[in-house]
Structure formats: structure tokens, C-alpha cells
């Protein structure tokens, strides 16, 4: 691994080592660009990941101070935990389930396709599927996505068998074990899926793609990467010209450090990316960096989610094997006749007994709740993931009262469901219930959204500088050597799990940054 001096101002500094930052770091290093990668969390490995939900959560989840507001149920049930993301090398690629779906073309054109929706701050992306398709292909190869590049699909588990049979009975056509960045066979030096059932806890077999043991070691091998773990970014500094010049961070000992930079890329997951730019406000940028539009922190999206759990007379043991073992794609279309715009996916989900208790129906007690727990081994489950509407008032701001362990203002996450979100969720609950009823469900639970893992949109891309934070390359409109490199650049959320798109955008952005560096434009 390389080592760079703190005053070396020739390096690209990337903040965050997850899907966006980790992939971008590797792509730049492969092109010969020197990179310092700052990661707030510690470095774990497949060997140190834990097959036990609460201890794992304490090992890898982002647990720094956060607050919530708004009418979303997460604010009531988990007021200090708006998101289920990670603070560890590899970021939330430690926790993600592996679903790797391309967006539909229409989803890049949400404003044009859906029209004006009251209360929604819809905007078309400045890029389309044609722009991203070659990068999707590269991302799928890099990540080893099943059903692409000649890679076989994964074998379905018991939870999938229930979904598949129910889907067939209600007439769905597109149900399979889907496209997953989980090795169905050994590939790229990583083993095959052992059907552990702990995808959310960091994959101990290494079959699931994570930047921790793919992109980051590959980048280290080039001699162009210095990874600094336990390095918590606090501020991005700029020079008199208004160019990003350094990143200030707290190291493992809590000491303040300053790394000079030629280029700064922000990839901290949407809550922290917006927070870091807000924390970096200065005399020249009084409302935060790259916020001349006033859109920084706004249009926070989290997908329209929810879960449907159903109990049966016979055993399912849904916790055995891949968590997202299968998908129904028939509802991932824009069909306003359903009473909402945009589409959604239905994907199997399972939770271990401890987290099933915590998330099934937060706050509930009594025999109606415990009867579901009693049927745990006879339960099947699916997760709803659909497009939610961007709203200006759904936003990340800095708390005026709560501070984190470094004395920095904590982020507050405000979210209200849009009427479109609610209509979509209710439709999905009904469809999910029908799938399970078709194969003999006894009881069905409509589980409310979990703390968000898909955090999107707080630094969105826009063609016009007045509409968003960054351009089609993730380059901020205001500061040419400051980039947004994670899901916060999403203009709209689409109905698909975001990681594949984050990685595709990172690969595309690496081409742009390398080209701009070679032209001395940044």
C-alpha cells in the first residue's frame, strides 16, 4: 500500500470506501491516479464478520448520533436510527444483499414520464440509459452479477420456493432468483455462495461482492492507493479561488489531520455526504459547499419500502440461505392505472430471530405479535422496493442541539411519505399478500419500512446548476474539483436497488476525472 504525505496536494482524496468510493478508488488507481481513501470505520474481513445479528450490528453499522423528524414511521420507531448503513471499510457493501438491477430507461426521465406531480420535485436525469449501459456492463462484470456475463443464477432457497409458487398462481411472469452480485460458482478469486443466511452481516464466505475484498485490495496492489481507516472526515476546505484544497478528518486517536488534495470526491452515503458539505460552510460558501442551488441535502429519497411476512402450516425456515433469494419484477413498470407513478420490485427477505422481533412490528406487544414470533420457522417474507418521490422538504440538515463524538452537529433526517409513496406501498402490500394467500398463508403482516439502507438524492445531478448539486459526471456545479460519487447524486430513485447504478456511475466518473486530470482542467 502506498503512503502519501499530508501536504501532498497531488492526490485525489475520496471520502468513503463503499460502493461508490471503493469502486472509484480502484478505477482511478488502475489508471495511475494517486488516491487517499478516507474511511470513518475500521477494517474488518470475512474472518472477523459475525453470524449474529446484534453483535454484527454493533461491529459494522453506522451508530453515530443522528436525529429524525417528519411523519415517517421510522422517526417514531427508531428516532436515532434513520438509516441502516455501515461504518466500516467497504461501507454498506458489507451489509447490502447483492441485488444488482439496471434502471429502466424511463426512470432516467421521471419528470417527462410521470409529468408534474404535486409536491414532488421531479427532474429528468442529465443522462439516460444509453449513457450508462456500457458502464452497467462493466459494473456487472466487475461485481460478478448472476445472469450476466454467462454467470448462472443462484439456486433458490425455501423462501424463494414460496414466493415463486405464489407468484405463478397470481399470474406473475417474471419471478426468478434474479441478478445478484453473489457468486453462484467460484469467480474472480472468490468462492461460491454457501447459503449462510447472513448477507446483511458481512459475507463470511466472500461470495457477495463488497469493495472490502475486491476493489480495495485491487487498488492497493497498484501502489497508488493509501487507505486510511478510522479516519472520520469533518470538513472539506477550499482555497481563495473556491477550489477544494484539503479534507480535515479525525484519525483513530481522535486527532485532527488535514490531507491536501487536488480533487475531492464525496462518497459517504447520502446522509453523511450532504452533512459533510453542510459542515464545510465557509465565508465564501455560507450555505455549505456546492449549494448555490439551495438543493444540497434536499430531495432525500429512501425508496418506498415495506415488507410482507406470511405464516404457513408447514415449515419454511426462511432464514436459511441468501436473504434476497428471489424477485418478482412484474410490478417494476410505470402503469399509472394502479393509482401511482413509478414501479416497484418484490424481493424475498429474511431476518434472524433477533431482528425479526425488532423489525416485524416495532412497538407492538401482546398475543397478536407473539403469535407471529411463534410461527417464525413457518414464515416466508418479501421486501418491497419502489420509487419514492423526491421532495424538497425531505432533507438532511445539521442538528442545532445534538452533536456527535467529535463535537460536530449531528445530521437530522426529515422525511414525509408522498401520497404516491403511500399508494404504491399499499398496492405492494396487497400484491404481496395475494402472492402468499395463493399458497395458503395463515396470517399476513404488513411490516413498516426499516431504517433506510437506500439513501439517495441529497446532492442530486441536474442539467441546470439551479436544479441540483452536480452535473452529469457527478462534478459539482460550483466547485470543479469537488465530486459527488455515491447514491446522493441520484436525480430520482428509480424502483431498483441502487448499488449497481452507484458502481456504474463511479466507473463512468473515473473516466471523466482521469481525463480532466490529464487535460489539467481540474
Amino acid at each position, binding site marked *: 500500500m502506498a503512503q502519501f504525505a499530508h501536504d501532498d496536494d497531488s492526490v485525489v482524496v475520496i471520502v468513503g470506501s463503499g460502493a461508490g468510493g471503493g469502486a472509484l478508488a480502484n478505477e482511478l488507481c488502475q489508471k495511475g491516479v494517486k488516491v487517499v481513501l478516507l474511511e470513518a470505520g475500521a477494517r474488518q474481513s470475512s474472518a472477523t464478520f459475525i453470524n449474529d445479528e446484534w453483535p454484527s450490528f454493533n461491529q459494522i453499522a453506522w451508530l453515530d448520533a443522528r436525529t429524525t423528524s417528519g411523519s415517517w414511521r421510522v422517526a417514531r420507531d427508531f428516532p436515532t436510527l434513520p438509516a441502516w448503513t455501515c461504518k466500516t471499510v467497504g461501507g454498506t457493501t458489507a451489509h447490502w444483499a447483492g441485488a444488482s438491477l439496471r434502471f429502466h430507461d424511463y426512470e432516467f426521465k421521471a419528470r417527462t414520464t410521470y409529468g408534474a406531480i404535486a409536491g414532488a420535485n421531479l427532474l429528468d436525469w442529465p443522462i439516460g440509459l444509453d449513457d450508462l449501459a456500457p458502464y452497467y456492463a462493466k459494473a456487472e462484470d466487475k461485481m460478478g452479477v448472476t445472469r450476466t456475463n454467462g454467470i448462472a443464477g443462484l439456486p433458490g432457497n425455501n423462501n424463494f420456493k414460496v414466493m415463486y409458487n405464489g407468484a405463478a398462481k397470481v399470474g406473475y411472469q417474471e419471478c426468478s432468483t434474479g441478478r445478484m452480485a453473489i457468486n453462484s460458482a467460484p469467480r474472480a478469486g472468490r468462492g461460491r455462495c454457501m447459503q*449462510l443466511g447472513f448477507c446483511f452481516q458481512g459475507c463470511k464466505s466472500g461470495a457477495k461482492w463488497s469493495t472490502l475484498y475486491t476493489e480495495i485490495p485491487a487498488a492497493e496492489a497498484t501502489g497508488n492507493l493509501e487507505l486510511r481507516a478510522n479516519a472520520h472526515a469533518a470538513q472539506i476546505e477550499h482555497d481563495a479561488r473556491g477550489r477544494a484544497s484539503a479534507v480535515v478528518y479525525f484519525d483513530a486517536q481522535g486527532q485532527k489531520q488535514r490531507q491536501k488534495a487536488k480533487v475531492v470526491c464525496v462518497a459517504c452515503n447520502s446522509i453523511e455526504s450532504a452533512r459533510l458539505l453542510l459542515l464545510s460552510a465557509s465565508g465564501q460558501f455560507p450555505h455549505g459547499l456546492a449549494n448555490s442551488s439551495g438543493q444540497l441535502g434536499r430531495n432525500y429519497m429512501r425508496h418506498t419500502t415495506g415488507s410482507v411476512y406470511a405464516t404457513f402450516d408447514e415449515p419454511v425456515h426462511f432464514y436459511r440461505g441468501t436473504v434476497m433469494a428471489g424477485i418478482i419484477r412484474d410490478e417494476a413498470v410505470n402503469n399509472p392505472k394502479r393509482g401511482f407513478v413509478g414501479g416497484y420490485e418484490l424481493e424475498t427477505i429474511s431476518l434472524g430471530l433477533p431482528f425479526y422481533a425488532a423489525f416485524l412490528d416495532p412497538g407492538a406487544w401482546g398475543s397478536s405479535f407473539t403469535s407471529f414470533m411463534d410461527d417464525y420457522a413457518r414464515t416466508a417474507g418479501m421486501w418491497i422496493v419502489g420509487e419514492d418521490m423526491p421532495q424538497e422538504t425531505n432533507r438532511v440538515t445539521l442538528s442545532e442541539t445534538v452533536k456527535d463524538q467529535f463535537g460536530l452537529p449531528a445530521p437530522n433526517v426529515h422525511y414525509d411519505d408522498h401520497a404516491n409513496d403511500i399508494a404504491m406501498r399499499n398496492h405492494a402490500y396487497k400484491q404481496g399478500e395475494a402472492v402468499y394467500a395463493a399458497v395458503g398463508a395463515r396470517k399476513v403482516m404488513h411490516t413498516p419500512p426499516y431504517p433506510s439502507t437506500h439513501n439517495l438524492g441529497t446532492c442530486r445531478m441536474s442539467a441546470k446548476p439551479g436544479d441540483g448539486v452536480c452535473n452529469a459526471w457527478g462534478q459539482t456545479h460550483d466547485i470543479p474539483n469537488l465530486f459527488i460519487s455515491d447514491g446522493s447524486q441520484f436525480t430520482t430513485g428509480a424502483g431498483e436497488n441502487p448499488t449497481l447504478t452507484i458502481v456504474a456511475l463511479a466507473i463512468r466518473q473515473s473516466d471523466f476525472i482521469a481525463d480532466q486530470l490529464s487535460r489539467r482542467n481540474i
Partner: protein
Amino acid sequence: MMDRDTRLQTRPASGLDSVSSFGVERRSLLKTSAMLTGVLLAQGAIGLLAPSLAWALEVKTIDQKQADTVLRLAKVLYPHEGLEDAVYALVVKAIDEQAADPATRQLVAAGVEALNAQAGGTWLTVSPDRQHDIVAALITDPFVQKVRATCITTLYNNDMAFAHFGYEGEAFSKGGYLHRGFNDLKWLPDPSLEASPAPYSA
């Protein structure tokens, strides 16, 4: 069975001592403020796994009546037929540990008094239906909420509960479920091979 026995003993969240000798009890009585004891059902899911059927929980901070009240409150909040008291006792253990903090100790004392006041005497001795109704009336009480939240993170987070509810827990050391039933469901037809390909075999 060796594997299962050691799991029950070593998982920290289990936390109960099996009473294998009086020495253990006597040595710790000095710092014990209350004691919960019981005997596991020999043929229950947990009894079959346990190294000993007798169990004991030493309570260090809260008193006996408070410990008994927390135990009963956990059972009213999250009733499970056949779930051993040994599992509910873990909630008492967790509350007792939290009560090392004086504010929590005060919360427990006030909460138990509130339940008793609502019962017009001793909440523990009124009928189960009345106990339930009193808890429902006091569900927003901070003590009741603390016990409720502690139930969620404790009751279902130990090897005895895993055995009772049929969750197999840690999987990596056993090779995952690839050869241990990840697709053994037989009450529905198998999906097509197109939708669900056969597992890879080298």
C-alpha cells in the same frame, strides 16, 4: 449434543447459571439482592439442550418483588406458550444490569409502584386478565416501555429462544445451509430450473 450444550453455556446473552453445585450459589449470595430459580421442562426444546435442568439467576440491584414483577411483566407483554421462565429471566437480568444506573433503579421502583397502584394493591397477585388490562392502561409508562424494549432485544436474542422458536443461528462454522436444507421445502413444487438453477457442483 456436545456442540449444542457448549453453545447454550457460552453464548453471553444466555447469562443464566445452571445450578450444578451449591458452592456457586453460596459464594455469590453475599452480593445478591434477589434470586430467581426454576427447573426446565426435561422434554422441552431447551431442556433437551441444557447441561442441567435447574437454573438460577442472581439479581444484584433490584429487589425480589421488583424482579418478580419484571418477570411477570415480560410474560404479559410477550406471552409465549411453553417458553420457559428461564428465557424470561434474561429480561430480569438485563433490567437488573441497567438498574446499576441510579436513574434506572428509580424508574424500576416507580414503575412497579405504578403497576401496584393501578391494581389497588399488588399487581402480581391480581388475575392474569386484570394484569393485562393494567399493562395496557400503562403501556406508555417509561418503565413498561423500558421492559418492553428490553424484551425485544433480550427475549429473542439467546440460544434458548433460538431453540424454542426454531432458528438455527450461526451458520458459517457449519458450512452454511448449502448442504443443510436451504432448499428442502417439499410442500410446494420446485421452481423451474430457469427460475432457480441447480446449485453449482465442481
